[in-house]
């Protein structure tokens, strides 16, 4: 058998659920004094799946906790079968897990699980995103008064923004803190949740709707500081600039923002 044909047969064997090799591949191999070909191939077959499951178990610890070992492994095995790894780094293996859950489970089951998967994946994205150059209070203090109205910002590279319809953050936190795992519930009001990295530490927090609208206006709506104050004036009247500065200070302290230079 030519090298490429042999490798194709080996690859098919590894990806197949059945650990029995096709006879042509089996005949192309030899074992050792006490290790037969079937056992040798089974070592590779087991290792392939075990390695990938291990990665998903580490990247989705809250889902694992929720589902339990056996059910998680069944779901993760289906995912691996559906989406064998395409990237050279195992770091990216779980990239499609949320979408897979959404597509392959019934909606009542998939919606909260998929949201939790997207939350856990967001942490992995924040973990090794570029550091960027977040604004600091010190750098804000050097802004000239005439720069303030036109000030525009963009998210720091690690910032992940999730719209949560379920109490996914509580579920995740309970696993992290090893406290009682709450029931999954639908939130009365959907909640924006931020995940980002400041220095080397990942942080998260949820936003109330008013703060979420204001931050989203700056990051996605293209508002400058002056426009933020104008928008806030609808609710806060003369207190709008104070509210804008209060939030802006918080966001800068958190390390969420970079200056957008025109």
């Amino acid at each position: 058998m030519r090298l490429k044909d042999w490798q194709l047969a080996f690859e098919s064997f590894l990806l197949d659920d059945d650990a029995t090799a096709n006879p042509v591949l089996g005949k192309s191999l030899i074992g050792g004094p006490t290790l037969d070909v079937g056992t040798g191939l089974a070592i590779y077959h087991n290792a392939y799946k075990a390695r990938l499951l291990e990665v998903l178990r580490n990247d989705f610890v809250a889902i694992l906790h929720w589902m339990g070992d056996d059910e998680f492994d069944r779901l993760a095995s289906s995912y691996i079968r559906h989406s064998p790894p395409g990237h050279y780094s195992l770091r990216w293996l779980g990239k499609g897990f949320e979408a897979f859950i959404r597509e392959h489970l019934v909606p009542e089951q998939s919606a909260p699980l998929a949201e939790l998967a997207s939350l856990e994946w967001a942490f992995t994205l924040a973990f090794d995103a570029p550091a960027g150059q977040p604004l600091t209070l010190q750098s804000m203090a050097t802004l000239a008064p005439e720069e303030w109205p036109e000030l525009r910002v963009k998210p720091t590279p690690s910032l992940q923004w999730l719209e949560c319809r379920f109490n996914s953050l509580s579920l995740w936190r309970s696993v992290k803190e090893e406290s009682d795992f709450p029931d999954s519930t639908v939130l009365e009001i959907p909640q924006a949740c931020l995940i980002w990295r400041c220095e080397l530490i990942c942080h998260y927090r949820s936003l109330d709707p008013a703060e979420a609208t204001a931050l989203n206006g700056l990051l996605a709506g293209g508002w400058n500081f002056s426009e933020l104050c104008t928008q806030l004036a609808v609710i806060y009247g003369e207190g709008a600039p104070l509210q804008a500065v209060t939030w802006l200070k918080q966001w800068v302290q958190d390390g969420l923002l970079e200056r957008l230079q025109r």
Partner: protein
Amino acid sequence: MSASVPFLGYGLGLRSAYYQQILEQSPDVDWFEVVSENFMVQGGKALYYLDAIAERHPLVMHGVSLSIGGPHALDPDYLKQLKQLADRVRPAWISDHLCWSRGNAHQLHDLLPLPYTEESLDYIAGRVRQVQDILQRPLVLENVSSYVRAAADDFSEWEFLAVLSRITGCELLLDVNNVYVSSRNHGFDPWAFIRGLPVDKVRQLHLAGHSDYGDYVIDTHDHPVSDPVWALYQRTLEHFGPVATLLERDDHFPPFEELLGELHKARELGDKVLAGRQQCA
């Protein structure tokens, strides 16, 4: 080992479990080997510790995803990132494995065995030259542990490594544990393997633990180095002279002191063997 190759001494695989202790304790470790793919990221803890440790210790890059024998075209994006990482850490050398880890369509994330045939030799030699042209340095290739082998082999594994290094100029990373594991699984003489490698091409040695299941042995890197592997290591040093030695541990991480103790054992053994060689000379 030829005089032109630096003897780096005794090193450890850099694993996240030990990052902080390495920085705080300045341990008696001559160098660290980093798994290249773990640092092909854009930011965060891994790169922070990599840069900090690189300021204090020499580093060597060791990859697992080059897939030098794979059926696919070499991945230009992977090689670009490998080169960028090399520019960042300035490793003493860059190694990967004589294996294939990516198939026709998918990444298989394992160090899969190759048939040691004339066809494989021609194919892999061409790819080694391509990689060396891109990296602008000799590639260092490691022998893997294996659990099956091709019936149609034209060469033994050590003959294949020797010829490949001769015709491409690549160098060799001799994993003593892998030799032992494969020798048990396939029933060959481990010393014949080691003795069959060209002395002037072995740039580095690996030491690691395995799991012994009686009828077969699996390369798990989750145990201390076994006595037969220590014996083989001693004989290897007697044959090759000083060769940079790296202790690998990838699971069941012991306390750092325990790992340092195992590295110290390698150093003591190396010092003893090398002192004996000097007396004989």
